[in-house]
């Protein structure tokens, strides 16, 4: 037993120190018993203090750095997971350990969110997020319902997003690589022209429905092939330019041509002869003098008047001069010259000289005429004339510098170059000159172009055939031989670059119809062509050819747009393709197609909608829009085709929609991320928006009717029928419906972000209305699942502290997790309609309240029976930690109710109601929500109180037994009081250690209330049993001892019942004599208050001297008439009270004064008291004034008066000198009769003294 007390004291002391709670400290320090015990055990106390400190430090750490603990936890968690894996492998018997570990890990986490005050609630939740939600076994109750129904959706969505992000990134990188506007043709590293997959070829044939034609046939039908062939041979023979590369050589060119033209050997020989016989061509070198810069100044004014002279070294006498540009060092000429060259002129050199013009007289004269000449043409002529005059005449022109260009450095395709100007004997540069040089013949231009187109077609077809390049891959690179032949032809025919480009464009477009070429080719050609065409530089025939070619090219462009989703090529190529297409379309659109050409024939574009009758009102943007839409339509059909519902059940329908919306959304996502920018920048087309407009309409028409239908027919959730499999159905559908809701919600959000201006017109805008009927069911499902989980959580709770820093156990944490999940569900729902939102919040709060109450009930049920023990003699109950945990758990849940409700977004909703409706409405809604919350908190609090009452009521039997035992045996054995104290000590100690302050003090007051009630009961039954006063006195002693030990003195009076009970015990504990005296004292107090009396008044004097008491009865006045004659015969008797203490003293009386209502007694009495008697502090003198009966038998009371010893002076003075005391007479009344004291006397049935007193008392009342 000593050991137990020791522990108790230690525990309480430690708590006291830990909490530093002054108030309770005093209440406990009052217990002498405890103090003694504590003092004798110092060492253990210290130990506890230290551990308490440690706990405190822990909080500090937590406050300092939540993150580090998170990390620590994560580490722990992975360790744990790994260990789990190991365990599984090792043995099944290790399951116990697994459980332990699981617990441990859980505890580790929970310990971190221990202190409510240091960490805001939200943070704790956040923190919990990294925790694997909750005990797996709780999830198993409903197959991870909440994980699917909310948090998991969220996580899933995040995961998908992350994946999308990765995908996006890949494509974005690809896009970035492709992005550079100018693609360097030479440097573009050509991707290996390998066939990627079968699909490629399939798709290519699919694009161009026609079967590829035989290339030879194509060539022959096109042109008289022999003629062209001999022309080519002739060109090879008469090569121009520097690039007759030695590696290639004539022979290789001949054989290449023969192959390309598919010419037999005999025919080749024959045609070769013809070509060799042909005369050498009339070749020219074309020189454009463009400009010069930084020329050396020659004139006195620091400038020059430069002009250019050019000639071939082999024919220096034939000089050509440019015009003179007066007074400049940076002249621009842009003048063309054609110099005939000899065959085999490769050794020749082109000489360029820049001169400063020094005009002769004659020139000046001519210049004078300038003003007479009209029109620009005349002016130019004149200037030229002047220049010629200047060169042929004797002149003193000064050379600025010259440049010599060997003809064999000039490529056949020509070149543009800056040359620096040198001068003999001068080291410094004299300036730079820019010239463009090319070769040409004097062929007919039309013929040359046509020849070139045919040659190009033949060579390209040949090359395509030879290299087997895959569709879409060829973008302009020929073999060296092919390139050589083409360049020679261009050079020898003197075709301009623009002419060449038109030809290429036409030929490529033609070939592209059968064999898809790289679209880059076209976009590059258009880059070069669009300006000349716009400026009207291109001749009409070529323009017509251009548009014909464009018409051939466009279908494949729109094909790319329509098939943008095909996964036949990699993203990078796809991006590139789309980029090219958009560039092409942009060029075409800006070129403004002529009206006489129908670019979009009905046959080629069956998918173009909104054509007005037969008119070709299509333009590039509208066709593009249609192509985009058509692509989406095709793709959607494809999705629908490939995602058929397995059946027509609600579940299948919902899952199907979810899948479809997901696919649509990811398509949109992709469109937004990659293509939209491209479309907008290149052709100013809002690609993603166009898609969204289409999709939202489709999604709405697809889902809305069915969702509404499903919501309308949702089955009620019947909680009763959970055992049946069929009960899962509505839950399942409900969950899927929610999943679909989230999917549509995401989709709608996307639209709002995409086109904020238009989203109000979208059909999808009110999507939530489709689901309206479902929300109530979702809430119901959520509650149902929550209740299930709570029950499981309670079942799994081991009723041990989550860790040593907190005072609740696992189920409390789990319950909060469940609440959190409900909240996540609500947040996910993100219901847009405010009015409904408000009602739903009210519902959720009410539901959470219901869950909390349910939890409280389960918790109470779980601990019921714990701590009870029974042996043969008695039933006992000890408060256990489990009980305390149960209370703390419920309290912990209650505490989170308010923050929880704040997280539901109440304020926002109220604010919106205020904006939408009126402040008054908002006020009322707010009031309602507050009421609901307060109600919830109250209800749960009452649950706690209820539980506390249960706990205390369980203590009652033991307490009652000990109390009664103590009262019976007190004199002989103090032990039972000790035992009672210990029992209460023990239990309160446990409560104090485990409960928080609020609940502990609540318990205390319940304890006192209950104790008071119990005592009252004990008093009642034991009075009936006629227990002696000592029994009650002992009870009272015990009670006072207990109150002294456990009760805070300032609470002492607060407990009304208790003080009343104490009073009752005091009364019942008194001996009869004392009790009677108590009655008299009450009478004395009461009489003193009377101010008026019908009975009359007496005047007395009294004094103490040493131990003697002298009383002088002087007179009476206004005595009540008692006799028939209207007067009275009175005398006064003197009693000293309490009676039993003055037994030795007689009760003297005055003489009787007949028929006198104002008698003068004037009698003096002296009492000699013992020392003890003199010491009686509450002694009283009672004067009873009686009416003497004739016979003396039946004296009747007139009235009584009291004088307390304390009112009597102790003096040596003569009594006659003392003032008189006037005492009003009064009688015992009913109120005295009804007092507890009198009642107690009445109950002392066997007590003679009491009986006698009561009998007399009635007489004294005047009855």
């Amino acid at each position, binding site marked *: 037993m000593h050991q137990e007390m020791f522990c108790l004291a230690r525990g309480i002391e430690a708590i006291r120190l830990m909490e530093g709670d002054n108030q309770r400290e005093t209440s406990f320090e009052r217990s002498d018993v405890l103090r003694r015990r504590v003092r004798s055990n110092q060492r253990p106390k210290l130990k506890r203090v230290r551990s308490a400190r440690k706990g405190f430090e822990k909080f500090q750490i937590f406050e300092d750095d939540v993150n580090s603990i998170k990390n620590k936890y994560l580490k722990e968690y992975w360790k744990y997971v790994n260990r789990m894996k190991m365990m599984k492998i090792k043995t099944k018997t290790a399951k116990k350990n697994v459980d332990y570990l699981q617990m441990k890990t859980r505890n580790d986490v929970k310990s971190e969110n221990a202190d409510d005050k240091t960490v805001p609630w939200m943070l704790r939740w956040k923190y919990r997020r990294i925790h694997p939600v909750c005990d797996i076994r709780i999830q198993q109750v409903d197959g991870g319902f909440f994980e699917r129904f909310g948090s998991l959706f969220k996580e899933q969505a995040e995961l998908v997003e992350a994946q999308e992000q990765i995908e996006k990134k890949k494509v974005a990188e690809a896009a970035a690589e492709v992005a550079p506007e100018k693609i360097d043709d030479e440097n573009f590293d050509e991707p290996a022209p390998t066939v990627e997959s079968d699909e490629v070829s399939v798709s290519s044939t699919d694009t161009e429905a026609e079967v590829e034609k035989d290339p030879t046939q194509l060539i022959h039908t096109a042109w008289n092939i022999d003629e062209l062939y001999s022309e080519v041979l002739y060109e090879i023979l008469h090569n121009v330019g520097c690039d007759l590369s030695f590696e290639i050589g004539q022979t290789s060119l001949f054989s290449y041509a023969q192959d390309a033209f598919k010419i037999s050997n005999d025919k080749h020989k024959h045609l070769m002869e013809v070509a060799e016989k042909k005369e050498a061509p009339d070749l020219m070198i074309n020189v454009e003098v463009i400009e010069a810069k930084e020329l050396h100044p020659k004139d006195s004014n620091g400038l020059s008047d430069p002009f250019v002279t050019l000639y071939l070294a082999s024919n220096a006498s034939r000089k050509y001069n440019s015009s003179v540009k007066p007074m400049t060092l940076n002249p621009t000429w842009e003048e063309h010259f054609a110099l005939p060259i000899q065959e085999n002129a490769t050794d020749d050199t082109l000489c360029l000289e820049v001169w400063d013009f020094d005009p002769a007289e004659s020139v000046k004269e001519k210049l004078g005429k300038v003003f007479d000449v009209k029109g620009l043409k005349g002016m130019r002529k004149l200037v030229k004339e002047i220049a010629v005059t200047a060169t042929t005449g004797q002149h003193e022109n000064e050379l600025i510098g010259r440049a010599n260009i060997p003809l064999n450095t000039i490529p056949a395709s020509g070149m543009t170059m800056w040359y620096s100007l040198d001068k003999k004997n001068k080291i410094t540069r004299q300036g730079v000159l820019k010239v463009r040089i090319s070769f040409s013949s004097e062929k007919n231009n039309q013929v040359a172009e046509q020849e070139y187109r045919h040659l190009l077609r033949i060579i390209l077809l040949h090359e395509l055939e030879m290299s087997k390049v895959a569709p879409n891959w060829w973008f302009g690179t020929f073999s060296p031989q092919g390139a050589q032949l083409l360049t020679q032809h261009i050079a020898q025919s003197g075709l301009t670059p623009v002419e060449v480009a038109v030809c290429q464009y036409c030929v490529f477009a033609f070939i592209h119809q059968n064999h898809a070429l790289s679209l880059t080719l076209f976009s590059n050609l258009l880059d070069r062509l669009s300006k000349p065409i716009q400026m009207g530089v291109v001749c009409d025939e070529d323009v017509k050819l251009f548009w014909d070619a464009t018409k051939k090219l466009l279908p494949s462009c729109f094909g790319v747009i329509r098939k943008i989703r095909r996964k036949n090529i990699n993203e990078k190529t796809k991006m590139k393709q789309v980029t090219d297409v958009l560039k092409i379309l942009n060029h075409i659109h800006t070129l403004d197609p002529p009206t006489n050409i129908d670019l979009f024939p009905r046959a080629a574009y069956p998918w173009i909608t909104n054509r007005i009758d037969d008119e070709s009102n299509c333009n590039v943007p509208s066709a593009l829009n249609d192509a985009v839409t058509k692509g989406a339509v095709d793709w959607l059909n494809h999705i629908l085709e490939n995602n058929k519902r397995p059946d027509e059940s609600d579940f299948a329908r919902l899952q199907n929609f979810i899948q479809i919306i997901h696919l649509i959304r990811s398509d949109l996502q992709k469109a937004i991320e990659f293509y939209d920018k491209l479309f907008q920048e290149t052709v100013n087309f809002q690609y993603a928006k166009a898609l969204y407009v289409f999709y939202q309409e489709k999604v709405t028409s697809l889902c809305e009717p069915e969702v509404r239908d499903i919501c309308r027919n949702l089955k*009620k959730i*019947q*909680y*009763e029928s*959970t055992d049946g499999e069929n009960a899962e159905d509505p839950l399942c559908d409900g969950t899927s419906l929610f999943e679909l809701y989230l999917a549509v919600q995401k989709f709608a959000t996307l639209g709002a972000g995409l086109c904020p201006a238009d989203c109000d017109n979208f059909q999808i805008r009110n999507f939530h209305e489709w689901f*309206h*009927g479902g*929300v*109530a069911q979702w*809430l*119901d499902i959520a509650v149902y699942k929550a*209740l*299930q989980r709570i*029950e499981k959580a309670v079942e799994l709770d081991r009723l041990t502290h989550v860790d040593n820093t907190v005072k609740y156990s696992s189920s409390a944490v789990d319950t909060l997790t469940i609440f959190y999940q409900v909240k996540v569900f609500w947040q996910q729902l993100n219901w847009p309609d405010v*009015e*409904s939102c*408000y*009602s*739903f919040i*009210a*519902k959720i709060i*009410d539901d959470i309240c*219901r869950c909390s*109450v*349910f939890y409280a*009930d*389960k918790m109470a*049920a779980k601990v019921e029976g714990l701590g009870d023990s029974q042996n043969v003699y008695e039933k006992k109950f000890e408060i256990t930690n489990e009980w305390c945990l149960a209370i703390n758990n419920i309290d912990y849940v209650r505490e989170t109710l308010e923050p929880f409700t704040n997280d539901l977004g109440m304020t926002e909703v109220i604010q919106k*109601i205020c904006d939408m*409706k*009126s402040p*008054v*409405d908002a006020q*009322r*809604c707010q009031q*309602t929500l507050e*009421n*609901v919350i*307060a*109600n919830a908190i*109250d*209800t749960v*609090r*009452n*649950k706690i*109180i*209820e*539980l506390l*009452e*249960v706990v205390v*009521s*369980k203590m*009652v*039997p033991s307490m009652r037994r000990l109390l009664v035992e103590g009262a019976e045996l007190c004199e002989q054995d103090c032990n039972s009081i000790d035992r009672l104290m210990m029992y209460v000590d023990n239990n309160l100690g446990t409560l104090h250690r485990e409960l928080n302050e609020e609940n502990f003090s609540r318990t205390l007051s319940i304890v006192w209330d209950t104790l008071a009630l119990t005592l009252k009961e004990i008093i009642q039954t034991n009075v009936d049993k006629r227990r002696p006063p000592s029994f009650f006195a002992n009870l009272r002693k015990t009670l006072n001892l207990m109150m002294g030990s456990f009760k805070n003195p300032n609470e002492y009076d607060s407990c009304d019942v208790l003080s009343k009970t104490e009073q009752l015990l005091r009364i019942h504990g008194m001996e009869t004599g004392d009790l009677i005296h108590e009655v008299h004292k009450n009478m004395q107090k009461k009489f003193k208050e009377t101010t008026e009396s019908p009975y009359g008044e007496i005047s007395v004097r009294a004094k103490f001297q040493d131990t003697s008491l002298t009383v002088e009865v002087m007179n009476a006045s206004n005595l009540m008439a008692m006799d028939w004659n209207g007067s009275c015969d009175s005398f006064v008797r003197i009693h000293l009270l309490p009676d039993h203490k003055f037994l030795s003293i007689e009760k003297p009386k005055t003489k009787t004064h007949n028929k006198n209502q104002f008698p003068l007694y004037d009698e003096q009495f002296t009492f000699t008291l013992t020392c003890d008697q003199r010491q009686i502090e509450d002694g009283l003198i009672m004067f009873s004034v009686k009416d003497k009966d004739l016979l003396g038998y039946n004296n009747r009371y007139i009235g009584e008066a009291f004088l307390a010893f304390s009112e009597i002076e102790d003096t040596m003075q003569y009594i006659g000198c003392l003032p008189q005391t006037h005492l009003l007479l009064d009688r015992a009344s009913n109120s005295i009769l009804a007092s507890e004291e009198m009642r107690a006397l009445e109950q002392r049935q066997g007590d003679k003294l009491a009986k006698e007193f009561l009998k007399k008392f009635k007489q004294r009342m005047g009855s």
Partner: protein
Amino acid sequence: MRSNSKNTLLKVVILGDGGVGKSCLMNRFVSNQFDEHSFHTIGVEFLNKDIELDGETYTLQIWDTAGQERFKTLRTPFYRGSDICMLTYAVDDKSSFKNIEMWRNEFLNYADVKENGQFPFIVVGNKSDVPVEEREVSQLELETWCNENSITSCIETSAKSASNVQEAFKMAVQYWLRLESRADKIDPGVNDTVDLKKKHSDNRSSCCTGSSE
């Protein structure tokens, strides 16, 4: 705010067409006020009120609902777990009286009450203060309907003149008590089970169980 844990909690829902005076009834009952120009109820409103009956205190948790059809999905979730349902009409509005049946059915459909047992419905004819010539439903009609539908409690009230408002709620609680005591006799100790399913069907949050030993 309630303080006493010994009170029995009773959840009351007030149903009826919009404008019959449900909100006014509740406000009259709870705060003894009447507002002639009361606002339309948004969704639901909630108030608490203690009521004494035969020395026992009952805490009524009163849910006032919005009668319009568009609020249907907002109010029906609150039916579940109710102990008392107050069906309300206005005596000067015949159609609101006709709709009582619809309201009862809606309630039964969503409240998840025990099928066999009776449920404490009370029919309240509000606005009894209106002049006789404006009256469209007589007391007799009310009683007849209740008889036909075996509802034993009905009363005419006026939120405006405060007549019979307290009585109406008292009557409802009495009815509940009657049914409750009968149910206890039939199926004693049903509350002791810790079975989830049964708890749901009988999720009365009575707080007076802990007082006994």
